[in-house]
């Protein structure tokens, strides 16, 4: 039996397979190949992430010291509105769907997406939504200043005049519609295009996590589309929310019926990625696969009944009911965490970069999850709601969950998409920068919030030790920024100079590794038998070499110690 390295640097391999001719821009933008649609969606979303991140840096710089230094309160309010809007509507939701569009067909052993034109159209709509939303900056009153939540009546035409907010509402509608269509295409693919032998319970963990995500998209997103359409009409003079005393509460119900599931939508697929990364790099099957799948389903079902916990301080919802449903979520979440840890126990863990980011995800998201259980208790939420405590809490779920999950996915699948490995020492460097940056940026915010600093403020009084905590947070933010610059250097460099990865650099367990990197147009020349959710692992367990059997690796592997 041959030996392998976690970093098969010296393995003689064929160069990455791809088209000899560079695709034209038109071909890239109009392809119905799920890999191109997925990659386009992911790369576009990541560009929006950089834009939203630049806004965050600007705001953190302003908040480093009390007093307004270089931003006006007007500009600050535009920035936090567009930061949140960009991160949710244009980055987080599209990116988790984009990862699905690329990797779900590969994991299912499918050659394509079902309804690829729906997914491509969805991409176009989401892109158009982003451009329309940002067009607000070009209008007279600028971009809107009502937060990504656009609560009514702050968002009505009298309080937020101008066409910029109208553009924003239309942009949200377009982007959300686009994401919904992409989710429908994924749902069809997951139901109809699984490889022979792949029953529902033999779908890999990531495919399952995309499926439950798609359920939430299809249930929650139409409600936002309705809410935003009504807001648009209201702004054009039709009395909708203003027609009854509790119209502002109605808006919040419609918004959060989308808005709570969406925070799970943007991290669920990454739970799947992290689970598979931990399993693969520990050389084990994910522990408790079936129970984890059930817990994902349970989680997504309950997640449709927790939206009211955003409204505890309105005193207009049944606080006890929503407290109960929100606290119960600790059961499925705890089961998933049990799976992460139990998979590591007894494994043979390789601490390559995907594993590091996966552990970063587990730890940082844990902070978000544990503080989430706190804010599910109304008497605690009465204090910390809309304070910096909540800002810290949800950044641990969104930065710790979505961004670290995405970095896990990128480091795990970059070799599959590009055929080349990322540079490991560089990856470890920016893992340290981004991880410590995430602690330094967001931990002080818990204290600021507890001591009374509200969120969404351009300035704060030079009270207590708020200045020190804010300065620390700003230093942390710039540490993260330095980390992402290094990350971009690694990606750019590895695209050209990275070590060829071969079809399966991590000894993966699922069908996405049973094809060359990058995969050819129709993905698979041959498929191994699918008898569980880990078909490649099954073969290895029997002492067989899946790659050789599939004709993917003619040369025996020679590896330095």
């Amino acid at each position, binding site marked *: 039996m041959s030996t392998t390295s976690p970093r098969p640097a010296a393995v003689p391999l064929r160069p990455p397979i791809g088209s000899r001719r560079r695709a034209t821009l038109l071909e890239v933008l109009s392809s119905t190949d799920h890999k191109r649609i997925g990659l386009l969606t992911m790369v576009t979303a990541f560009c929006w992430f950089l834009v939203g991140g630049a806004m965050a840096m600007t705001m953190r710089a302003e908040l480093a010291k009390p007093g307004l230094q270089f931003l006006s309160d*007007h500009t600050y309010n535009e920035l936090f509105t567009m930061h949140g809007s960009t991160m949710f509507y244009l980055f987080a939701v599209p990116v988790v769907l984009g990862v699905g569009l690329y990797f779900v067909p590969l994991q299912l052993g499918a050659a394509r997406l079902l309804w690829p034109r729906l997914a491509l159209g969805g991409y176009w709509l989401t892109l158009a939504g982003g451009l329309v939303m940002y067009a607000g900056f070009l209008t007279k009153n600028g971009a809107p200043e009502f937060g990504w939540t656009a609560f009514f009546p702050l968002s009505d035409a009298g309080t937020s005049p101008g066409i910029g907010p109208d553009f924003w509402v239309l942009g949200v509608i377009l982007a959300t519609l686009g994401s919904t269509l992409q989710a429908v295409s994924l749902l069809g693919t997951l139901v109809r295009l699984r490889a022979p032998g792949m029953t529902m319970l033999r779908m890999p963990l990531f495919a399952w996590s995309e499926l439950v995500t798609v359920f939430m998209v299809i249930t929650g997103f139409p409600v936002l589309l309705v809410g935003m359409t009504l807001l648009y009409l209201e702004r054009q003079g039709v009395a909708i929310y203003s027609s009854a005393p509790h119209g502002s509460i109605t808006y919040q119900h419609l918004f959060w019926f989308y808005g709570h599931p969406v925070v799970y939508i943007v991290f669920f697929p990454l739970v799947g990625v992290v689970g598979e990364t931990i399993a693969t790099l520990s050389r084990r099957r994910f522990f408790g696969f079936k129970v984890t799948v059930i817990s994902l389903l349970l989680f997504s079902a309950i997640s449709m009944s927790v939206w009211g916990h955003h409204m505890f301080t309105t005193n207009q919802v049944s606080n006890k009911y929503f407290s109960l449903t929100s606290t119960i979520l600790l059961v499925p979440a705890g089961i998933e965490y049990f799976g992460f840890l139990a998979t590591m126990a007894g494994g043979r863990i390789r601490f390559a970069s995907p594993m590091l980011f996966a552990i970063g995800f587990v730890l940082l998201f844990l902070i978000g999850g544990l503080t989430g259980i706190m804010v599910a208790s109304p*008497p605690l939420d009465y204090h910390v709601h809309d304070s910096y405590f909540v800002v810290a809490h949800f950044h641990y779920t969104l930065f710790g969950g979505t961004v670290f999950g995405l970095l896990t996915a990128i480091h795990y699948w970059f070799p599959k998409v590009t055929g080349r490995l990322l540079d490991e020492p560089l990856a470890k460097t920016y893992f340290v920068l981004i991880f410590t940056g995430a602690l330094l940026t967001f931990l002080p915010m818990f204290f600021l919030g507890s001591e009374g600093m509200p969120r969404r403020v351009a300035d704060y009084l030079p009270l207590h030790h708020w200045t020190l905590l804010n300065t620390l947070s700003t230093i942390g933010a710039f540490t993260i920024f330095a980390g992402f610059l290094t990350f971009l250097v690694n990606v750019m460099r590895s695209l050209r100079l990275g070590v060829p990865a071969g079809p399966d650099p991590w000894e993966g367990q699922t069908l996405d590794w049973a094809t060359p990197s990058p995969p050819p147009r129709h993905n698979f020349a041959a498929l191994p038998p699918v008898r569980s959710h880990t078909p490649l692992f099954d073969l290895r367990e029997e002492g067989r070499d899946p790659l050789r059997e599939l004709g993917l690796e003619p040369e025996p592997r020679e590896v330095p110690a």
Partner: protein
Amino acid sequence: MKPIDTRSQFYDIWNVYWPIALAVFLIILGAIVFFGLRYRARSHSPEIPRGRDENEVLEAAYAIGLACVAAFLVFLTFSHMPGSTDAEATGKPLEVKVTGARWNWRFEYPEYGVVEQGSQDHVPVLRVPVDTQVDFEGRSIDVIHSFWIPHQRFKRDVFPSFPNRWEMVFSKVETEPGGGACAEFCGLEHWDMIFNVLVMRQAAFERWAEGASAGAQGAGGTAA
């Protein structure tokens, strides 16, 4: 029967929640460090470790354990949430009408005919007697605001189109005015929409209210 103030309600729950959260974090961190050291791949052997990847009895027992934790937390929270107004409070409750407006606050004491209103260069002061139930009625004249007193560990949103009511008890005399703020983003000067809170001895509060009332009437202000 003395009504429970929001601050001690907060800490009764907080002091149970945060140690549990910290313990869970440390257990998981410890497990990751331990497993990471113990099960680290020390050679490049592709050998697959043997071991179970399913243990339904253990997982079911663990899920039941988690459900018990959830039940305990929910029970603790609910037991600190009074269902309705606590009518047995000491003495007669004080009524205060709170009005939020972009970007200032107004506090009205209908029993005394006193109005305290903030302005561009006056931060309004909410004066309340210690150990007395205060019944607030909150409204806004424009967008949603949120009346937050961090020291009391409590906030409540106020809306333009319907009143919101809540009760608070302030159990510690504060001689220095401390902060209150608007917590719901309400536009340009949201960050500056603050107020001061002064918790006074009951007699001192009475004196202030009577004096302010007489002053208001003497100046031709609104009578109670």
